[in-house]
Every structure is written in structure tokens, then in C-alpha cells.
């Protein structure tokens, strides 16, 4: 890891070097090394948007969010790489939306061609469109549907699931439960409205019914006030009064300003799913199946905090790069892209089955965890849903629905 912007003043980089030295000593007796040594250089760019505090203290953003995942992914790649004569070096940069493109171009100027980007749609597309012809970008944050459809880019692979994949993961579970009458509460910001669209489409796809909708308007104000729960307990049930009969309240709150208030503060005794209650995530620090405990404990030893979605998605992007480098023996982005999109690519991601990429829009297929914050309640796709290719393609945009042509 190379320190940039002072973010790496912590011990993560030092630990990486210490472990590498240990492994190097252990494997020094390796009889042969491949003649060609590769140096794999990856840049991780995280765009930090102005935002208020999260509703829950548990979600306070860590300084090294996503970057700690990059460290772990680089470390994992380095162990295999050591036998293969490949070295992995990753630089991490945190920037603002205004400076994002300039930072990207600076790194491209420094010779970086592999990028993991944590940004919203606009900044991400700007970088993809400004990228040198031989660069490859991984989206580890944005779930925007258009990026997987009409605004897809051939040089952009999506490790982050789309909003539609997350919504489908929730809806499949609710349909499996036969809780098919849903009351949708959505926020008023554009991202919330887009998420609500994803839930509507998902309900149509799997035969659930949105029996009613309500908008929870974002009127601003601080997110935390002393004894704020007193008002929440009085106001929320009133807001949720006079609804058609429903099994579940679906919350579409991409901007995190109201959904967490809903559980137990509804008028009817309905459970909440979506942005609160039963939440679709790519990773949970409580997840334990398929070796997940090991990934969680390795991450916690490294970062001294739990692993979250952005850490996991960054770790996973680095692992895609590492795996493609291992199997192709190349660090050329075009070769890595071809391998990642090819039939031979499989990657273990602690989700119980290999993750692969959709060839038509560069979206990674992956199971989605449904968590209540304390436990993994279920993992979608659910038993009983069918797909002619792989059950994972029952989540998100399928080939016939995608308007993406850049991958043809």
C-alpha cells in the first residue's frame, strides 16, 4: 500500500509488509519462479460526498472505509502472487466529487491502468469516459440501473450489485414467505425515487403486489437530537396510519434519513424490509457461512472494525484482478478483462458459490445476504425460483432487459 492524502497513517500498510516478509521467508525454498515477473498496480479512488450523519451510530463512516478492504484484497493477492512471481501494489485516494476526475487523470498519467472506483453514477461515468484506451475500471459502489443498461461502458465492470439485484433479493424472500402484499414507503430524494422504482419493478417481476405507497418527504434537519425517539414514537405511527392491508412495509430510503425509524413504529404490526428491518447487503460482519467467519476475522485483525459492504466490494474487485492475473500470468488490463468475462473465470467470494460476470453488461453475479443487522436471515436467490442460465441471473437485469450494447 502506498500512502496518499495522509489516509494511511495507520498501521495497515506496516502490517502488510510484516506479513509479506513472514510469508516470503516461509516460501523462500520455492524451487522455481516463473521467468516473467509481473507488477500489478491498482488505484482505488473513493469519492466522498457531503452528507449528514447516519441515523444509526453503528453506521458512522470509518476513515478507511473501502480502503481497508483494498488492503486485505492486496494482501490476499500477494500470497498467491509470491509463488507466481507477481507483486501487487495498490494506491488509495480519497477525493471530492469536484476533484474526482482530476485525481483519476493524474493516476492515469502516473501509469495506472487498473482502477477500483467508489463513486456515484456521474463521477464514475466521467472517469470511464476519460480513461485511457487500455484501462479497466471496477465499480465498487454505485447500484445505478442505467450503468448496467443504456449507460454501460465496455471498460467498466460492476462488482457492486445493482439496486435491482438488491430489490430482487428482498422480494424473492418475501414471495418465498408468501408475504406478497407490500406497502411501499419511499424517500423524496432522486436516489430514493430510483430505489422505489427498483422495488416496483421487482414486485412486478416476482408476482408481489404494491398495495399502496407513501412518500416520506426529506425536510432536512439534524438526524440526531436528544430524546428524539419520543417524537419518532408519536409521529411515525400517525404517518403510517390508514394504509390498505399489507404483509410487509417496504422502505426505499437510499439516502438514509427515515427508514431506520420504521421498525416497531408502524401503525400495523407489519415487519419492515428494504432500507431497514430486513436489509439486502453484499456483506455483513455477522455472516458466518461458507468460511465468511475467516474473512471477517482477517478483516477485523487488519482494520480493528467490522467489514461493511464497501470494504467487501473493494476487496472483491481486488480479488477479481488477483485471480485474473494468477490464471492468465498477465497484468495487461485487456487480458484481465477478457479472462474475467470468459467462461473459465470463477472466484470464491465466501458466498457459497462462485461469482462470475454477466458477459452482456459486465455485472458481477453474486448472492445477496438478507440481514436483520444481527444475523443473516437468508441468502437470495431463493430456492424455487428458476433461471435457464444460473439462478443468480434471477437477480437484477437479465440479458433481454438490458439495453447495454458496449459488450457486444
Amino acid at each position, binding site marked *: 500500500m502506498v500512502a496518499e492524502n495522509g489516509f494511511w497513517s495507520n498501521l495497515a500498510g506496516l502490517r502488510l509488509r510484516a506479513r509479506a516478509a*513472514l*510469508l516470503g*521467508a*516461509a*516460501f523462500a*525454498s*520455492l*524451487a*522455481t519462479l516463473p521467468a516473467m515477473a509481473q507488477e500489478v498496480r491498482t488505484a482505488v479512488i473513493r469519492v466522498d460526498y457531503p452528507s449528514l450523519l447516519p441515523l444509526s451510530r453503528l453506521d458512522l463512516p470509518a476513515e478507511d472505509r473501502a480502503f481497508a478492504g483494498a488492503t486485505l484484497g492486496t494482501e*490476499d493477492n500477494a*500470497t*498467491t502472487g509470491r*509463488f*507466481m512471481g507477481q507483486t501487487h501494489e495498490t494506491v488509495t485516494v480519497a477525493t471530492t466529487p469536484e476533484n474526482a476526475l482530476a485525481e483519476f487523470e493524474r493516476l492515469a498519467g502516473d501509469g495506472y491502468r487498473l482502477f477500483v472506483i467508489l463513486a456515484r453514477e456521474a463521477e464514475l461515468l466521467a472517469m470511464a469516459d476519460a480513461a485511457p484506451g487500455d484501462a479497466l475500471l471496477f465499480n465498487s459502489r454505485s447500484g445505478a440501473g442505467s450503468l448496467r443498461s443504456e449507460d454501460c461502458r465496455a471498460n467498466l465492470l460492476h462488482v457492486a450489485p445493482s439496486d435491482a439485484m438488491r430489490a430482487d433479493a428482498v422480494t424473492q424472500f418475501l414471495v418465498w414467505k408468501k408475504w406478497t402484499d407490500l406497502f411501499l414507503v419511499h424517500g423524496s430524494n432522486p436516489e430514493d425515487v430510483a430505489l422505489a422504482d427498483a422495488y416496483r419493478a421487482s414486485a412486478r417481476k416476482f408476482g408481489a403486489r404494491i398495495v399502496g405507497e407513501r412518500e416520506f418527504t426529506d425536510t432536512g434537519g439534524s438526524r440526531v437530537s436528544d430524546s428524539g425517539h419520543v417524537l419518532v414514537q408519536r409521529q411515525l405511527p400517525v404517518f403510517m396510519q390508514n394504509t390498505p392491508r399489507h404483509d410487509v412495509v417496504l422502505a426505499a430510503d437510499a439516502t438514509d434519513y427515515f427508514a431506520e425509524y420504521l421498525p416497531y413504529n408502524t401503525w400495523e404490526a407489519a415487519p419492515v424490509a428494504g432500507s431497514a428491518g430486513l436489509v439486502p447487503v453484499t456483506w455483513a460482519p455477522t455472516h458466518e457461512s461458507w*468460511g465468511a*467467519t*475467516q474473512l471477517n*476475522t*482477517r478483516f477485523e485483525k487488519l482494520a480493528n472494525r467490522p467489514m461493511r459492504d464497501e470494504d467487501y466490494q473493494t476487496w472483491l474487485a481486488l480479488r477479481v484482478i488477483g*485471480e485474473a492475473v*494468477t490464471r492468465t500470468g498477465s497484468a495487461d488490463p485487456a487480458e484481465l478483462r477478457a479472462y474475467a468475462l470468459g467462461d473459465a473465470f*470463477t*472466484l*470464491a467470494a465466501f458466498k*457459497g*458459490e*462462485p461469482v462470475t460476470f454477466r458477459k452482456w453488461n459486465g455485472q458481477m453475479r453474486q448472492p445477496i445476504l438478507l440481514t436483520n443487522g444481527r444475523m443473516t436471515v437468508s441468502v437470495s436467490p431463493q430456492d424455487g425460483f428458476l433461471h435457464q442460465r*444460473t*439462478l*443468480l441471473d434471477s437477480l437484477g437485469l437479465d440479458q433481454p432487459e438490458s439495453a447495454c450494447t458496449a459488450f457486444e
Partner: protein
Amino acid sequence: MIRSTLLATAAALAIAATPALANNVFVSNERGNTVTVLDSTTWEVIAEFPAGNRPRGITIAPDGSELYVCASDDNLVRVFDPNTFEELHTLPSGPDPELFVLHPSGNPLYIANEDDNMVTVVDVKTRQVLAEIPVGIEPEGMAISPDARTVINTSETTNMAHFIDAESYEITHNVLVDQRPRYAEFTSDGTKLYVSAEIGGTVSVIDMTANEPPITRKITFEVPGIQPEWLQPVGVKVTADGSRVFVALGPSNRVAVIDGETDEVIKYLLVGQRVWQLGFTPDEKFLITTNGNSNDVSIIDVEREEVIKSVQVGQQPWGVVVAPD
């Protein structure tokens, strides 16, 4: 009248049958925190005893004197009397022991520490740690060559089989296999090594007669109507004559039967749900499979290559070993 005829028939059958020796079959139950004991002639459950927290890997001394269980969440190996089921003592194992292999002589024990990127070598007599060997990330599968010179460890995230010199404890060779290698198994003549890759969906066949043993073949699996991603090879067992290889295929609920000469899959046997580990009876007449999601074991008749029975055991059976004769 009818009853006496039946009795007579039963007596005749008892005489005709080869005098099968009953062996205790030990099944570790990961969730139940117990070991279930079956009788290998009647296939009845004869006991279930506490085995510590999260028992997974299980093996027995070659002379049948001690039963070893990886109590993963206790960070140690528990040693039991295989006849009385009493706990005798514990062995230090390093953190999170998952699978292990005994030296053919019965000592020492080589343990994979899944959470700590190490293999720990423990003397089962003095109960001392002899060595800690750094390996790749998430070590799991362990095997030792029949000549006891080479210890194999597979690391699940590094995707390698590490060859460890059994005397110097140095890594001498590494073979890149497919995603998430879970188990390694030698043929009894030591010429071949099989390494299963759970997420890669393959079993690599490694030629041990070559100087730097290479992969000579990758066995793949295909079952009509089963999504390929559910064909997840885990446990592997080879018959002593090398003619048959059995591979447990996880959530596809199948065990593959492979011709040991050609390394071609011959057939698939339907067993219980999420089959992970396998164990032969000493005469190799039967193979027992642990089915974690249906809480049972399936008994395979090895010669007929058929499942003859399934027996309920404890919660989430993980590993299995059968007492020697």
C-alpha cells in the same frame, strides 16, 4: 411354526454370512457439539457423546487407541477413549483447528489452523507443539504421503496445495489448483494426489512421481438437472487398490464415483443434503458420507456402488472416521 422357520432361516444366514467385525463409526456433529457412534454391522446409533465446541475434523490412531477431534471453537484437539467415549485429555492445536492428519505411525498430528494461516505439528504423546508452519490463507485440507516424507496442506484463499517436508517443516513445492481447495488425498501407493476445489468445481490430479509434481488432469463434474455451481467437491477417498475414487459433491447431494485408472467419472450416487466428508470401513466394504443439512449419514456399498441406507445422527454432521479392526 412360522416363527421357528424364520428362526432357522436367520440362523442359516448368520452362518452363511462372512463374519463381519463390528467397528465403531464416529461422526462429528458440528452444530450438535457431539460425536455420534454407529455400529458398522447394524448401522444403529449406539451412543452420542459431547465433543467440545464445534467438532469438525475427526481421526483415530492407527492402533485404535485414541480418537482425535478438532474442537474448533475451543481452539484445541480433544482426545477420547474410542471404547468408553471418555475424554482422556486435550492437545494444543493452535487457533481454530479444522482438519488434521496423523503420521502413518500414529504420531505426530499435523493440524490446519483455518483462522491463522498456519499448520501446527503436535506430538500426541508429549502433547507438545513441535512446529508452526506458515502457509497460505485459510489452510484446510491436510494429507501425508504414504512414505511419510511429504505433508500436504491446501489453503482455501491462496488456492494452492503446499508441499511440506515432514522433517524440516519447510515448504518445498506449491501447486496452484482451482478455487477454494478443501481436501487432499493420496493413493495408497503414493503416486497420485487428489485435491478437491469446492468453488472451482474440480478435483486436480497431481502426479507424485514427477520431480516437481504437476497437475496432470482436472476432473470435472456434470449432473443433468443440477446447476453446475452446486457441484462442489469436498471430501475425497481412494480405495486401497486405487481402482475407485469417491468425491463428495456438497450441496448437489451427490457422491461421484471415479475410475482410479482413467480418472473418469463413472456415476453419481444420490446421498443426503450437503455432503462433505467421507470415511471407509477398514475392509472398504462401506463408505460413510456426512450430510450436514439433512443431519444424517449415507452408507454406500462400495462394491455395488449403491447407497444402501441412511442413518440420522446429531446436528450438522461434519466428519467421519471408522475404528480400525
